[in-house]
């Protein structure tokens, strides 16, 4: 089959690789009909997430048709149309039974790598996202092996198009969970979203769905800000305005009640702090560039929530912790517990509350994907979200 393969920092390519096979009785094989490039794939492209190996198949946002199931799979059968969460969960461990699927104890075969870096504990495995997160082959391919097939995949029985349900695999639940984590008081709370990429777009719309009085989106890319503005958000271009001043003004000096950092570890930012972050990351002295996080802590209102769907990888410094403490902020963060959001969010799509396909700007084949990785990274050509058809 054809697959998008990581070939080293800043190198992805299309290769012909063996078709996946069932490795365990709880596995299923999915023929992929649609797959997407995620903003977090760019951290892999840039080489800032450790433990990638040449030859790894990328991709964690995919859906398709079940073609084969292991003998212990009970809920799926060949022919079923499914969306597959990007995180892999066993469904039986204590975190899974509490709905904390991305914190699964059992799905990461390489738990030792994550334990070494993250204080002796490992989260669950992820598709196509480094060996530290399990080394599972990803879904930017024609077929994929899906472990724990009774737990993750969710059947789509309505006639919604792929593009309307594909983002249930990651970015819609990720944006939604980020907004849900804020504990928005409907009609009262103002929410600011840093980063108007796909997750930021879904976070902003989710904050609206959850009743935020006002949503402000911060970015520097005009077409991304325009997309947020079209949804009724106020926008701030941080290259044109001083973010902290603009947010104070927009909130009557209080600051946003909750701030969502949908940027994560590769913030562009500007000013001396951003330059120092970039230099340290290049020299491998630091994993993360944290302009967005600093702004989040500095701008958030007293008693507010800083919610982090953006990915962070390691140790960071120059965090304005004093500001966070003085204001009594609450931090909420982490990988998305996708499995628990799919059914309720699918109901919202079916009810017409939201059509997630708004975010798609580029449609392409696998052969065109390596070039589109760079278009997406460089934010050229108005690129916000790329959907790939593996059979085109």
């Amino acid at each position, binding site marked *: 089959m054809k697959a998008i393969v990581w070939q080293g920092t800043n190198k992805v390519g299309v290769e*012909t690789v*063996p078709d996946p*096979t069932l490795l365990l009785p709880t596995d299923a094989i999915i023929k992929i009909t649609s797959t997407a490039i995620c903003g977090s794939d760019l951290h892999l492209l840039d080489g800032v997430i450790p433990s990638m190996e040449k030859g790894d198949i990328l991709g964690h946002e995919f859906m398709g048709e079940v073609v084969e199931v292991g003998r212990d799979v009970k809920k799926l059968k060949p022919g079923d149309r499914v969306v597959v969460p990007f995180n892999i969960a066993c469904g039986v461990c204590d975190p899974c039974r509490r709905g904390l699927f991305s914190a699964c104890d059992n799905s990461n075969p390489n738990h030792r790598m994550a334990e070494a870096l993250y204080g002796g504990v490992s989260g669950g495995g992820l598709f196509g996202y480094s060996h530290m997160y399990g080394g599972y082959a990803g879904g930017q391919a024609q077929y994929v092996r899906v472990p724990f097939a009774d737990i993750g995949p969710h059947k789509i029985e309505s006639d919604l198009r792929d593009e309307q349900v594909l983002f249930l695999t990651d970015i819609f639940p990720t944006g939604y969970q980020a907004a849900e984590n804020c504990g928005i008081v409907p009609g009262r709370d103002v929410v600011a979203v840093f980063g108007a990429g796909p997750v930021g777009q879904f976070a902003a719309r989710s904050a609206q769905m959850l009743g935020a009085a006002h949503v402000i989106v911060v970015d520097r890319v005009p077409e991304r800000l325009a997309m947020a503005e079209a949804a009724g958000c106020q926008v701030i271009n941080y290259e044109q305005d001083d973010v902290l001043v603009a947010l104070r003004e927009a909130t009557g000096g209080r600051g946003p009640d909750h701030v969502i950092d949908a940027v994560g570890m590769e913030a562009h930012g500007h000013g001396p702090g951003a330059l120092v972050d970039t230099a340290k990351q290049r020299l491998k002295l630091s994993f993360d560039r944290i302009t967005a996080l600093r702004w989040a802590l500095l701008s958030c209102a007293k008693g507010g929530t800083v919610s982090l769907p953006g990915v962070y990888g390691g140790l960071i410094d120059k965090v304005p912790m004093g500001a966070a403490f003085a204001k009594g902020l609450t931090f909420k963060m982490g990988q998305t517990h996708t499995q628990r959001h799919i059914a309720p969010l699918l109901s919202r799509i079916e009810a017409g509350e939201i059509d997630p396909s708004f975010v798609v700007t580029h449609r392409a084949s696998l052969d065109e994907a390596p070039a589109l990785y760079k278009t997406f990274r460089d934010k050229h050509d108005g690129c916000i979200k790329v959907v790939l058809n593996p059979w085109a």
Partner: protein
Amino acid sequence: MSQDDTQPTPPALSDSASDTPDTHSTGAHMPARERSVVGTVGVALMGAGLRSARPLQKIVLGGVGAGLVALAATGRNPLATALKIRQNKEGEVLVSDAVTVGKPAAELYAVWRDLAGLPRLMTHLERVEVLDAGRSRWTVKAPTGEVSWEADITADEPGQRLAWASVEGAAVPNHGEVLFRAAPGHRGTEVVVRLTYRPPAGTAGAIVARLTGEEPAQQLRDDLMRFKREQELGFAPTTEGQSSGRAPQGGAA
């Protein structure tokens, strides 16, 4: 997982655990023999430094020598301390780890009590032969071939605790215990393993083993996670044999 029904009451942990030697401390105590070797080398270097005519040599040799003497005097190996190797005054290494498994203590205890089945949990164990009610023979794979010793069960409290100690003359003298206690909130059972052993080449051997990765602390972690997954899932998650750009080019298997 059916674990809400048969929760044992928490065992009296303090009683069962209190007889573990508390002479262990984080950091490393060099045994007396190592201290005397290090001290002798240090004194020799200091002497060579003082005799040297070249000022740089004087400083370097004298400094290193003085450092080794200080090391021998304190009896603490800074490298072992940095690697978080825990040793007691007798030069024995302590290793412990814990995992919470979503099953009742009695079931988990039964798996550990079946000594002959332990090699399935601990991959570095070649085999355990049960010789009589209390005594067993343990065989491990080592770079030099197989090493085996005999051990006695020293405590057996069904559903709560199992302890053992190697008999006199074992190649790698060791003793240890496994505790089983109810996790709060019906989360199953906390399984705590404590091992104490005398590394074949003293502190230096423990450091080399830690640095080369063939070290009981790491083996224990892997073994406990394998145990948890076998109990909760019935299998180990794997990516062995999956497709990648590293595999031979070609079509379906």
